[in-house]
């Protein structure tokens, strides 16, 4: 295993507070919420596991192997609730879901198109496949349709909400909130600065 301090990007002499801060920042970055349905979700999950282990190791070492520290890290329980928490009553849909999770998008698409009756879940799954492929416009349309057909389904609504936040999600410190916080004048100023400022 890698040195837990280098995983968190702090020096071994860092204070408990600094370690905690570094851990929080990394956990915010690789949180499963940011990578829902992302084709790279497994990589984020690995990173999350790595930093959780590193943090646990450090807290254990620092408290002298004592009792209280173990459950301080978070994140471990999220992945399972997204991947396995929702189930399909329909056999084909369940199969499509597992194919999507395994990354077999072409297969999932083929199977899904054999289904004649198109309900909310059909559109939701079709949207998930599009999302994974990076076809954001079609994902958006399909998710919207799914929510329209079954407005009370939390899974569909959550998927649509993630799409509607656009480029939101994690930003490193200093990039938070993007440019939306700026007023009109600053924006104009910024646009000029894209190229080093003004009349060149």
């Amino acid at each position, binding site marked *: 295993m890698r040195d837990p301090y280098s995983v968190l990007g702090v020096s071994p002499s860092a204070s408990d507070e600094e370690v905690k801060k570094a851990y929080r920042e990394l956990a915010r*970055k*690789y949180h499963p919420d*940011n*990578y829902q349905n*992302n*084709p*790279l979700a497994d*990589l*984020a999950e690995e*990173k999350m596991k790595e930093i959780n282990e590193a943090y646990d190791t450090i807290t254990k070492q620092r408290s002298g192997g004592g009792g209280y520290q173990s459950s301080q890290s978070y994140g471990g329980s999220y992945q399972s609730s997204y991947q396995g928490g929702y189930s399909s009553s329909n056999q084909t849909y369940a199969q499509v879901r597992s194919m999507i999770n395994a990354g077999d998008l072409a297969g999932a698409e083929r199977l899904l198109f054999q289904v004649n009756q198109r309900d909310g879940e059909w559109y939701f799954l079709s949207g998930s496949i*599009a999302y994974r*492929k*990076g*076809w*954001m*416009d*079609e994902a*958006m349309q399909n998710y919207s349709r799914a929510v329209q057909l079954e407005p009370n389904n939390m899974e569909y609504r959550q998927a649509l909400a993630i*799409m*509607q936040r*656009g*480029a*939101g*999600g*994690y*930003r*490193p410190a*200093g*990039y938070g909130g*993007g*440019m939306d916080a700026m007023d009109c004048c600053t*924006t104009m100023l*910024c*646009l*000029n*600065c*894209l*190229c*080093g*400022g*003004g*009349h*060149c």
Partner: protein
Amino acid sequence: MFGYVRPFRPELKCKDFDLYRATYCGLCRCLRRRYGLIAPMFLNFDFTFLALVLWEEEEGWEPCRGRCHANPLVKKTMCVQSPALELAADESVILAWWKLRDSVQDEGFFAGLPARALSLLLRPAYRKAARQAPDFDRAVRGCLVELSALERENCPSLDRPADTFARLLQSAAPAEGTRGRVLGQLLYHLGRWIYLADARDDLEEDRQAGRYNPVTARYGPQGDDGALALTMDQSLGRMGEALQLGDFGCRSALLENMIYLGLPLVQRAVFDGSWAQIKKQKIWRNDT
């Protein structure tokens, strides 16, 4: 179609600006050494981004001094030659070549003459580049054939043509391993974003010329800036997520600046029409 990917300078640290400039100059020198005097003329900011992401992970970078191609009296700080830079140079020449061929096909005989002349000049460089990176050349050619077929049939989907261009750029990354997956996703969404930004930018021109435009085909003649901006934001979001999963060493901060600040501002400029002015400006100058 090119020049959309640039850093946002006021938020850039001096060392990151130096790195950016050194990469730009290094790529220029690499193009000159490998492909002669013509190829560096086609250098642009997008190719510099490509060189930055393709670079091996390094904690620091070695600057070296070299003569500027544009002005041989001046010496500039440059990145040293490396396999990643050479790959970026090969791919840049291939992209520049196919972009020219695309213009030749799009325009009529007389309007296409400048592009025709330029492509004649670039031809030897392209031949060599296609030998160096045959897989990439094949992928680009294949995607462009698909793209022009979609354009001919006036494809009503926004994602389908954007996907074709996205896959084109995706093939610039090495295919294998975790690094390949991260870079692939990053470049895929960059390609999608560039295609859509370019389509929005050409909206007016295409309308007047009566040409195919994916934005018009999807949203109707007036377009729908809100929906288009949202779908482009989603690609920016995916790029940011991929960026965080990769190891870019000393280039992380620069790449973060380009993706989190530069691209959204360019997008905004494309939507409000100020891009036409901004794209002509250079990054380097400071003479306000």
